[in-house]
């Protein structure tokens, strides 16, 4: 915290309110090529926005299966983060529903979703800046009652730099290091489903590769991963499923390979 120029003193993202879901109307069928109704986690035809503001999502659907990696890509401001927040219950879903393992969780508060095993790394202010790296990780494991030292060792293994800086306040880390702490924190939860909002923003290529490696591993242990990525090409390469959001709507969906191959997607979102 002693360096005010790097600190974004948490809690600046005013949108993360405990709104805890909203008034629901029916979920009017789904579109898209997949059958998300069977998916493990699904935000089904969600429509909603911030506070009393206009709708930002329009019938937007994102879903992820057990053991799968689903990636959301799209231009800035498309509503990717908003979709993630909606799935996590941090803003009013005015229409549509969110289901986890077949159970409708639209009305649950974010805390309750955490208790249900959902883990989330927000795009901004995603670490406890005044706490040490190790305490950040411990807080990740807050809901766990078992011994989590094993998981912590794994995280340190994955991000060796964090082990080095374990007793340093997280706010004093470099941008990429913070990102690693944030992901590490989420991994500590041992979630049933992991949601990552741009986990690789600002991390170096080598760490990004490792991160993706690890994400693949995690996914292969059966934990579904839903993530937003701007490093879209790399992300789609490892994705089982990809969503392209444009202005709050599903523009394209398909497997990662399909999207990578789609010339229009390449041109508009992957930088040619």
């Amino acid at each position, binding site marked *: 915290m002693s360096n005010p120029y790097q600190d974004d003193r948490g809690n600046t993202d005013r949108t993360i309110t405990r709104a805890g879901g909203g008034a629901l109307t029916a979920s009017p069928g789904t579109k898209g090529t997949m059958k998300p109704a069977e998916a493990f986690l699904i935000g089904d035809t969600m429509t909603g926005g911030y506070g009393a503001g206009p709708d930002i999502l329009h019938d937007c659907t994102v879903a992820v299966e057990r053991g799968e990696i689903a990636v959301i890509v799209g231009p*800035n*401001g498309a509503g*990717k983060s908003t979709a993630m927040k909606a799935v996590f219950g941090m803003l009013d879903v005015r229409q549509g529903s969110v289901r986890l393992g077949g159970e409708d969780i639209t009305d649950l508060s974010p805390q309750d979703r955490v208790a249900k095993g959902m883990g989330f790394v927000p795009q901004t202010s995603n670490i406890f800046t005044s706490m040490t790296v190790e305490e950040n990780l411990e807080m990740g494991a807050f809901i766990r009652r078992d011994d989590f030292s094993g998981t912590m060792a794994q995280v340190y293994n994955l991000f060796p730099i964090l082990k080095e800086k374990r007793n340093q306040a997280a706010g004093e880390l470099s941008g*990429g290091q913070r990102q690693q702490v944030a992901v590490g924190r989420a991994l500590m939860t041992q979630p049933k489903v992991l949601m990552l909002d741009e986990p690789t923003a600002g991390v*170096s290529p*080598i760490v990004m*590769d490792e991160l993706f490696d690890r994400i693949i591993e995690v996914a292969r242990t059966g934990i579904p991963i839903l993530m937003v990525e701007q490093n879209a090409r790399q992300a789609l390469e490892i994705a089982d499923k990809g969503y392209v959001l444009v202005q709050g709507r599903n523009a394209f969906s398909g497997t990662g390979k399909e999207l990578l191959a789609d010339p229009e997607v390449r041109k508009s979102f992957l930088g040619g």
Partner: protein
Amino acid sequence: MIVVDDIHKHFGGFHAVDGASLSIEAGSITGLIGPNGAGKTTLFNVIAGVLPPTSGRVTMDGEDITGLPPHTLFHKGLLRTFQIAHEFSSMSCRENLMMVPGSQSGETLWNTWFGRRRIADEERALAAKADEVLEFLTIEHLADHKAGQVSGGQKKLLELGRTMMVDAKIVFLDEVGAGVNRTLLNTIGDAILRLNAERNYTFVVIEHDMDFIGKICDPVICMAEGKVLAQGTLDEIKANEQVIEAYLGTGLKNKDKVGA
């Protein structure tokens, strides 16, 4: 243009920048890469006057600028963006841009009371300029949105937009690309090239996206552990063993596990 001479920056016992020396040619677009925590942002902060160096010297066109406050450097034509977006959250995006130019006559209290005509004219020109920049960044529809309520990537764009509001000599960009859509990033790259060519801006760019670096940067400097590790064209750098080991890596190991 900028010469960094043996800069050290210590936080307690930790040497974030540990004797970095480099020079930036006028008119170049220099890429600065390096592993997380290499000290790139810290070096920026030292150059831009945000952090006082523990030792060492920075000169700009031969003039010693070590330790000058950021606002003085701004008026000397040295601009920077922040890795973590520093928008003025309760102001609209347009205002975020309009506040940038220095020496506006409306920033003198006396004029706000007695020179209102002049201010009004200036304001119109500024607003037009700001809208132009917003349009360029593809966020013209957000002109009247509070900057605190736009998406993460849009904030980064705004961050870049501010440097386009004035005539800068040298601009330090700290990871403009992180969180920005790749297609747009390409456009930004084009803009940087154009500013460089047409207005002769010098750029120093921190970025982790090698495609982007490759596209726009000529000399590339790689830092690691607070020191300059290597310098040269991107291809040279990419071939450097040390750089590969510390920074670039060798790609995914679990590629085989990727599904269909």
